[in-house]
């Protein structure tokens, strides 16, 4: 008996080991440079100071110092100041995709293709590489986390009003009308985040919309592209009919409505569900589910867009760009780091193999637990693989972002049609970019 137990446990250990090594199929990282090296890293990934211990163990001659400024404008101001000053910048810094072009234009970012980063393209979900290497040659960053789009919905509310989970935007609009009628207008089927340009752009992105494109030394800006017009007209229609709300994202009003069952669905990025679990607590816990983003045409492969996410740049001020590149690759491709970042901060990986890591599929913990134990990471992994590769940002995006809010506000007040709002967005942003010395058409 005892013998059998022993052999059994030996067997299970060996299977575990096998499984472990299969899952931990990290790529072969570049060789570390010799000598004692200290890398300064500016990042707002929670718990990163502990995660890097594994790196320091694997590469004993490299020490990592972390500065966490929490992200947001202050973080960029500090990085921008150090880059402009030509001194004091870190070796590695976390930068969101949308801000990469602005930093690349300062000349402060190292081209990582010089340090062999190009060999690692195949390990990332294709669209993420498009974000860090728009021209396919120079590599300005290593992709870190992502926010592919999917639909979150209240299972109980959809059941209550007898509507199926919509697979197309056509079905979505019909379901919205049904829920409005049956609930006598008390339940909104969806919510349009009227102050988040990247949210709207992700919806157009899913339809192949492109807003910016580098053109030689200049730029092409196309904020009023066909996809953008299609998407905005679609949502404006539902808003006018009172089927969809326009509550501000992350606001108390929004969480109140979401927790009280006054909202049936919303389009959220992969990092969104963690916020639902954190902000709603016990309210409506277990009633939410996730499903693929509704599609414009039925039956094809799932297409999606992206909202948020970030990358790791290496600055030209780094004295050890080789080691810095190695660290950025390790941080975003090793299963140890990806697992830790998911557990500590809900970072949805850009690594293709990372999407299949067991930690993401754990349903007994949030965010999946809050979503009724559904493996929502699988939904978002499918979404990420369906994100269009061709999508660029421009250095003047901060202005574009603010101007969007202004034009949409005018649209919601009925002063502009959706087409007019997008045309005004394009015109005012174009004028701003030109005023600020960009060659753009």
């Amino acid at each position, binding site marked *: 008996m005892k013998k059998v137990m022993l052999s059994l446990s030996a067997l299970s250990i060996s299977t575990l080991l096998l499984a472990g090594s299969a899952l931990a199929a990290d790529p072969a990282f570049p060789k570390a440079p010799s000598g004692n090296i200290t890398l*300064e890293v500016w990042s*707002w990934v*929670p718990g990163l100071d502990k995660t890097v211990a594994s790196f320091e163990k694997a590469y004993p001659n490299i020490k990592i110092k972390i*500065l*966490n*400024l*929490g*992200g*947001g404008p*202050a*973080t960029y*101001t*500090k990085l921008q*100041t*150090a880059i*402009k*000053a030509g*001194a*004091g910048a870190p070796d590695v810094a976390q930068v969101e995709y949308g801000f990469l072009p602005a930093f690349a234009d300062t000349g402060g970012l190292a081209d990582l293709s010089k340090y062999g980063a190009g060999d690692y393209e195949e390990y990332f979900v294709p669209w993420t590489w498009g974000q860090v290497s728009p021209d396919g040659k120079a590599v300005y960053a290593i992709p870190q986390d992502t926010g592919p789009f999917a639909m979150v919905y209240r299972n109980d509310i959809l059941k209550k009003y007898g509507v199926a989970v919509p697979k197309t935007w056509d079905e979505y609009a019909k379901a919205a009308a049904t829920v409005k009628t049956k609930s006598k207008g008390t339940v909104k089927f969806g919510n349009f985040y009227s102050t988040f340009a990247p949210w709207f752009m992700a919806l157009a992105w899913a339809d192949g919309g492109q807003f910016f494109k580098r053109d030689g030394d200049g730029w092409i800006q196309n904020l009023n592209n066909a996809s953008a017009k299609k998407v905005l007209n679609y949502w404006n229609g539902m808003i006018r009919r009172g089927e969809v709300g326009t509550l501000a994202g*992350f606001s*108390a009003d929004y*969480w*109140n409505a979401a*927790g009280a069952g006054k909202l049936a669905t919303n389009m959220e990025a992969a*990092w*969104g569900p*963690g*916020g639902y*679990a*954190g*902000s*709603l*607590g*016990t*309210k409506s816990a277990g009633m939410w589910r996730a499903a693929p983003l509704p599609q414009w045409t039925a039956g094809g492969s799932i297409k999606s867009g992206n909202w948020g996410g970030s990358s790791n740049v290496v600055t030209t001020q780094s004295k050890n760009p080789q080691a810095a590149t190695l660290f950025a690759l390790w941080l975003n491709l090793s299963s140890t780091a990806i697992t830790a970042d998911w557990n500590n*901060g*809900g970072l949805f990986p850009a690594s293709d193999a990372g999407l299949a890591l067991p930690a993401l599929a754990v349903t007994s913990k*949030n965010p999946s637990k809050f979503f009724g134990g559904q493996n929502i990471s699988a939904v978002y992994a499918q979404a990420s693989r369906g994100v269009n590769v061709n999508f660029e940002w421009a250095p003047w995006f901060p202005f574009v972002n603010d101007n969007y809010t202004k034009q949409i506000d005018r649209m919601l007040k009925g002063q502009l049609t959706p087409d007019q709002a997008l045309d005004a967005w394009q015109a005012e942003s174009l004028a701003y970019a030109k005023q600020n010395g960009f060659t753009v058409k």
Partner: protein
Amino acid sequence: MTTTNLDQPQTVKTAQAPRPPGRPRQGFSPLQWAALSLFCIYSLLPLWWVLTTMTKSNGQLYSTFGLWFTSPSNFAENVQILFTRDNGIFLRWLLNSILYAGVSAVGSMLFAAMGGYAFSKFRFRGSGPMFNIILATIMVPSTALALPIFLLMQKIGLINTYWAVILPSLVNPFGLYLMRLFWDAGFPTDLMEAARIDGASESKIFWQLGLPLVRGGLVTVALFSFVGAWNNFFLPLVVVNRDTLFPLTLGLSVWNQTSVSSGQDPIYTVIVLGALVSILPLIIAFLSLGRYWQGGLTSGATKG
């Protein structure tokens, strides 16, 4: 106290009589009462929100009425998180802020007093243009100075030290200007010359005879500098790279941003509690020093 000053300047001016300054001569009319009460409520409402919110959990923040307490109270737990999160670094930030603001207040007060004294009591070559240049620097916004200060600190190797935050805060051109006015009004040149004739040394005249006479000015400058350094965000943001050197402003903002950026485990109510703790020293400073401050202002006003 401030409102009486604003609304009734005449009363304050004539308050050299035994009547304690700051107390109005007669009662307010009902209309004034209503307006003042409304203004009072308007100013205190955000503080009231802070007091109610700091007793809630993050979940209760969204699910309960904003301007009233809720049960069960989460206050004890918030206090615990505030002082233990990230190995209790909040306390470190609090001490850092006290150090930064304290040294800045005392230092800039002394420098302003000395500089103001020089401009007030001595005529020297170029004193006029020099004073005007100092006045002009009041107009330069501190954000514009961040990059030069950063480069300077980098050059002399003080980046990422306490000095990088403290040294720039010691210079307070407005304080110097204010101190000159106080020296002009509070320390007559005749008195200085009399002291000289009596054989007092220059340093004795400044430290022992002069300074006590401009106490109101000193406290005013110290308070201004203390508040300025306490609220300073941009300078420490740029020149400090370790969270162990953060002041409260920077630390709380990082916690807040982390809650926004990651969305997981947000601690907004803890941050609100931290914000309240962070204004307590300011309230204490004003309550304990405000008397000198007001006295100084009125004496300056009547004599100047």
